[in-house]
């Protein structure tokens, strides 16, 4: 479906991947949100590209909804949270920066080893793009493991979702517009609920560092 646009696709796939890696490194919450916007816009561009080959009004609406939710509404909520609670700096990571980068490199290597054989049914360009998406998926999971901040964890979940969408698009697994609306609505509700919880956590614990939450230990 993406014939003759492999260069552009590779750039967009790389943006998704690099944004995921950068989420490990940024110290400021606002920068992390910017990275998420950047990543979401890349996903929006991929969705628009897929629209050119399968145009329908419903699909166009679904794509617009996805871009609005991921690129505008979610970041709006997060920046509002940051400003309201003055959460300029995110909580730290469990691993320091060199070890984090080393782990990311290891993840990419393992993904390539495990999945390369499985992707033989796809052509060379597609399998490269799929490997990039798979690496993004696992790097996003690592964001969730490595970062201590609640907001970073939310962005990690959303980055994971973006990476899976990029995988689906590169593999030619677009869903029907109705399902895309459903998935986007789910993300919207998830963003709203997680934002409420970030506020609750900050009010209750005075920090977004999840390691400070120890009330469940009996």
């Amino acid at each position, binding site marked *: 479906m993406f014939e003759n646009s492999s260069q552009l696709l590779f750039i967009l796939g790389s943006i998704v991947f690099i944004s995921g890696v950068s989420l490990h490194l940024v110290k400021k919450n606002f920068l992390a949100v910017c990275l998420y916007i950047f990543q979401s816009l890349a996903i929006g561009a991929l969705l628009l590209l897929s629209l050119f080959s399968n145009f*329908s009004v419903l699909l166009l609406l679904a794509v617009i909804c996805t871009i609005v939710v991921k690129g505008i509404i979610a970041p709006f909520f997060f920046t509002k949270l940051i400003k309201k609670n003055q959460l300029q700096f995110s909580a730290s990571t469990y691993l320091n920066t060199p070890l984090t980068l080393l782990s990311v490199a290891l993840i990419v290597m393992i993904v390539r080893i495990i999945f390369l054989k*499985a992707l033989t049914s796809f052509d060379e360009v597609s399998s490269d793009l799929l490997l990039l998406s798979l690496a993004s998926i696992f790097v996003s999971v690592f964001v969730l493991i490595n970062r201590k901040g609640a907001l970073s964890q939310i962005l990690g979940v959303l980055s994971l979702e973006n990476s899976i969408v990029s995988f689906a698009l590169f593999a030619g697994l677009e869903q029907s517009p109705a*399902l895309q609306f459903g998935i986007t609505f789910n993300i919207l509700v998830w963003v709203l609920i997680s934002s409420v919880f970030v506020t609750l956590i900050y009010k209750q614990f005075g920090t977004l560092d999840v390691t400070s939450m120890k009330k469940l230990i009996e």
Partner: protein
Amino acid sequence: MFLLALIISPLLATALCFFVKKRTGLLEFFTIVASTVELVAGFFIFFQVVANGNYFFEPYFIVDSLSTLVMLTTVVVGLAAAVYSVGYLRVEADKHYVNFAQIKLYYLLFNLFIAAMLLAVATVNPIFTWIMIEATTLSTTFLIRFYNKAATIEAAWKFLILNSIGLLLGFFGSMLFFTSVTGAGINNFISWQILLNNAVHLNPLIAKIAFIFVIVGYGTKAGFVPMHTWKPDAYNKAPFPVAALFSGPLLNVALLTILRYKFIVDAAIGSSFAQNLMIFFGIISIVVPAFIILVQRNYKRLFAYSSIEHVGIMALGFGFGGVGTIFALVHMIYHSLAKSILFLSSGNIMLKYGSTKIFNVKGVFSLLPVTSIMFLVGVLAITGVPPFGIFISEFNILSAGIGNFWYIVVLAMIALVLVFIGFLKRAVDMLFGQPADGLVKGEASMYTVLPVVVLVVMLLVGSFYLPQSIWALIHSAAAAIN
């Protein structure tokens, strides 16, 4: 028509609860009426499925024998939990632990939670199933945070993040399964059946990787070890009727989804891969909680670990196959009933003692005689004491594996003995002894007793006699799985 009634009634109740102002009675009324409609519609669908093999509302919803079993446990436990909620929340409101806004939110999300589970069961589309299971996470996060304390917020956050990650991995696994139907086009509504029909086109390695993601993803929701860590905290902090729904219907919905993908992966690469994976997750989900149950000091967490152990037993049954599959399905029914009895009867204990710590609960027999009997029935049933149905199902599941997996069966039996010892010791500690001064004898209300009595009667009768129609359904579902 019955399928529409089943799905629309909880959604309608949610909408109606949203518009209620200041009248708790209306919230209770809408919820109980909706749950009753679901039960009636559920039984009509059940008879249709027994007669015709399935029941559908084309092209989006279809209920087969396997989903009917899950649907039945959902509507039965759903009605019991709805009635129980009335009594439970009235007592909590009288003590000023909750206000009207909290009660309104409770009923609203309760109905939404039921609707999401029923939709996940009935839909023909795997992605819509995922959306609905994710909706169960979103609707219940605020129910776990219901009491608005630091610990409830922490438990809800843990629940939200872990389940979201799990479900996204499950979503990714689903996407990998979709690679067998590439080129179907965006307007094609890909159903479970289409995936099954195209299973032969699935790359074997992708099929394996996809099923690993599915079992890890949806297994997080089901509570397989090591993805179970949200369970004890979420069960402990959620209101008791919600914990009953978590432990029975929600667990079954997650298992149903895993089984649906098992059909596909079996068709693609044969049954041994999925079976071995089910056995692996099954046995670790039995053994790990067994040791924790032995030293558990909180009865709600005890039941949560017991749920993990029982999902492990079911997974073991599905892994062993044959008779194991049949009795894993039987186990699903008995476990839903027994665990609901335990959660709801222990809710009465909580209302009386105000604590979920076993140390603080003594002499329940003298203060809550009816609840005590029901609680004891629940404990004996859940630990697999004969003549309760769980004994029969566990015995048959383990018998199914003794030939090829005797070492797994031995491990499981040791774990089950540990669970029995742990449960019995805690139950004796709670039921007997001298209660603290100042506690008055008597049950909270009929609403908190009647649903549990009905569940106990169903469990007792069902342990000795399961109707032929239910057996027909179980055999038909097992044939599909095997």
